[in-house]
């Protein structure tokens, strides 16, 4: 996605203090929004402030957020992966196929993760190996992966997953904290450390800001990107295990359109769609916001397709507002 930027880059001559930067950051704005939505929801519905209801609400975002962490890294590196929802479908189909062959729960997990990794590797090889644009490749694999599920399943559905398999999507670790939520929290920490505290994370930012400069600084651009697509595939595999376990069945149309919600979550979290900037805590907050909004709508009996309009508007306005804001400030400054 080559973008045209004709405005001169402004380099401020005085850096702001750490405290004032933190206050003005996108993440603190998200935090305020999250608190507001929480408050509005508690007023709008008497059922919102119940620990078990809130725990149910987390299922609205945990699976998508796990993919969003990996997707955030991909987008920061200046690429995109639109095939994640189809990877969920294909891994779910593969697990369903394994069930009909009499696989037990550990085997199912291996099959789910393996399929996710394999799909990620296909994306990664096409993009880094052949140097193809990720947007077209993943549009292609988006129909290829889901198409394979359709070939395998047709209009059928797999059910009959073993009882122990239900734990991943329906089990609780402690009190109201579900296994999925615990997994989400663990991955939030892992990805924060990976992106913000390791060489690998710095390489991801470097590639997103200037791929050629990164290459000349000794960053193995191809290898880093390949790993990113592998990670996204793996996370989609994990999400597929959780979702399949939660629903207890597989259809080829499972998780249709989830890629849009994942991308929205990442962008809402303050990750620039053009690459080069963004943080994992931002994505975590965005996940909470989207989860609570959809749950609040659900309590108010708003149909799913209306929520998807909301997500579409949210996606566009989240990108448009900072641009309008910056433009308004520039006008005031002149």
């Amino acid at each position: 996605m080559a973008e045209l930027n004709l405005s001169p880059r402004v380099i401020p001559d005085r850096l702001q203090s750490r405290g004032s930067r933190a206050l003005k950051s996108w993440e603190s704005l998200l935090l305020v929004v999250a608190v507001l939505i929480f408050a509005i929801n508690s007023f709008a519905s008497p059922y919102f402030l119940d620990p078990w209801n809130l725990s149910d609400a987390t299922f609205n975002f945990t699976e998508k957020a796990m993919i969003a962490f990996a997707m955030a890294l991909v987008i920061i590196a200046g690429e995109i992966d639109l095939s994640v929802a189809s990877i969920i479908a294909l891994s779910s189909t593969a697990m369903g196929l394994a069930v009909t062959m009499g696989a037990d729960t550990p085997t199912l997990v291996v099959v789910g993760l393996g399929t996710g990794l394999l799909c990620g590797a296909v994306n990664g090889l096409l993009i880094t190996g052949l140097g193809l644009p990720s947007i077209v490749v993943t549009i292609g694999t988006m129909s290829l992966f889901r198409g394979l599920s359709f070939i395998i399943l047709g209009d059928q559905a797999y059910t009959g997953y073993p009882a122990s398999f239900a734990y991943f999507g329906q089990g609780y670790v402690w009190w109201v904290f579900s296994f999925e939520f615990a997994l989400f929290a663990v991955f939030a920490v892992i990805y924060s450390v990976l992106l913000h505290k390791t060489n690998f994370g710095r390489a991801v930012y470097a590639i997103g800001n200037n791929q050629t400069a990164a290459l000349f600084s000794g960053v193995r651009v191809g290898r880093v990107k390949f790993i990113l697509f592998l990670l996204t595939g793996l996370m989609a595999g994990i999400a597929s295990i959780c979702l399949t376990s939660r629903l207890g069945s597989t259809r080829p149309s499972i998780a249709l359109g989830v890629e849009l919600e994942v991308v929205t979550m990442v962008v809402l979290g303050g990750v620039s769609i053009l690459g080069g900037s963004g943080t994992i805590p931002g994505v975590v907050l965005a996940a909470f916001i989207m989860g609570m909004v959809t749950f609040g709508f659900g309590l108010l009996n708003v149909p799913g397709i209306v929520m998807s309009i909301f997500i579409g508007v949210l996606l566009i306005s989240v990108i448009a507002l900072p641009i309008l804001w910056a433009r308004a400030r520039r006008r005031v400054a002149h």
Partner: protein
Amino acid sequence: MAKLLKNREILLVLAIIALVFAIALRFPGFVAPANLARVYNDTSILIILALGQMAVILTRCIDLSMAANLALCGMVAAMINAAFPGVPIPLVILTVVALGAALGSINGLLVWKLDIPPIVVTLGTLTIFRGMIFLLTNGAWINAHQMSDAFKALPRAPLIGFPVLSWLSVVAIAAVYILMTRTPIGRAFFAVGGNPYAAVYTGIDVGRTRFFAYCLSGGLAGLAGYLWVSRYAVAYVDIAAGFELDIIAACVIGGISIAGGIGSVGGAVLGSLFLGVIKNALPVINISPFAQLAISGTVIIIAVAVNARTEKRKGRVILKKAEAV
């Protein structure tokens, strides 16, 4: 001869002929002129849409909202017809073409005035347009018996041996061909995609050009919306769901570079026909229609890989080693 073989359109024509003959070896009926005309007619809507998508892709943008735009316009056409059966069909068509262009102009304005990446804009409007159909209808269908006979008959009506649907796509091809090759705005599409910086210095407004490309793709999606709904005689929220991928696939197969600036009307038409032949051949050679999604996916990937190779050869490669990593 070697030069001729490098021409993408000729290669595609040869590929399509080879495909048709391979099918004809086992099922001679497939090459009967009447059947080939039927395949073309069945591909007409895809051709119309691919022409619009081509203009957008040429300017380095993408329109993922075309199928949703089609569905919304088709639903509005059906609703107008169901509520006021007396409204003449050409007026209905004009209305939905204008509506489609207006919806496309929303995409265009967001890309032009706010500099939002096209993929994000159209991913967003894709869900918004589909959601609007639900808000309009509350999820209800409009079925054949609610549409007037004239509404349903137009695309099927024979005109000099071929259905009006086929003729409309021929008119669209001719109009877009003239627009692309004989008008300043058509040349601007290529200039903006080929080198946006140079385009600015030649006095072309990049944003405005992109805006027009989106209006064109929206208007064509509106036309396709009427054709789709009247041809299949049903309108509901999910018509043409996922069809945006077929449109992009047709363009990519037709050699339109996703990086902008490279492509032709002939390529878009041939890419659509290639997909159309495959789609119509599947039931003949006894492959489940469920395989179609996987086949289009594979074809997209192969086509983009082939495109990338031919484009790389054309461009100057500075830093050969760096690019190879």
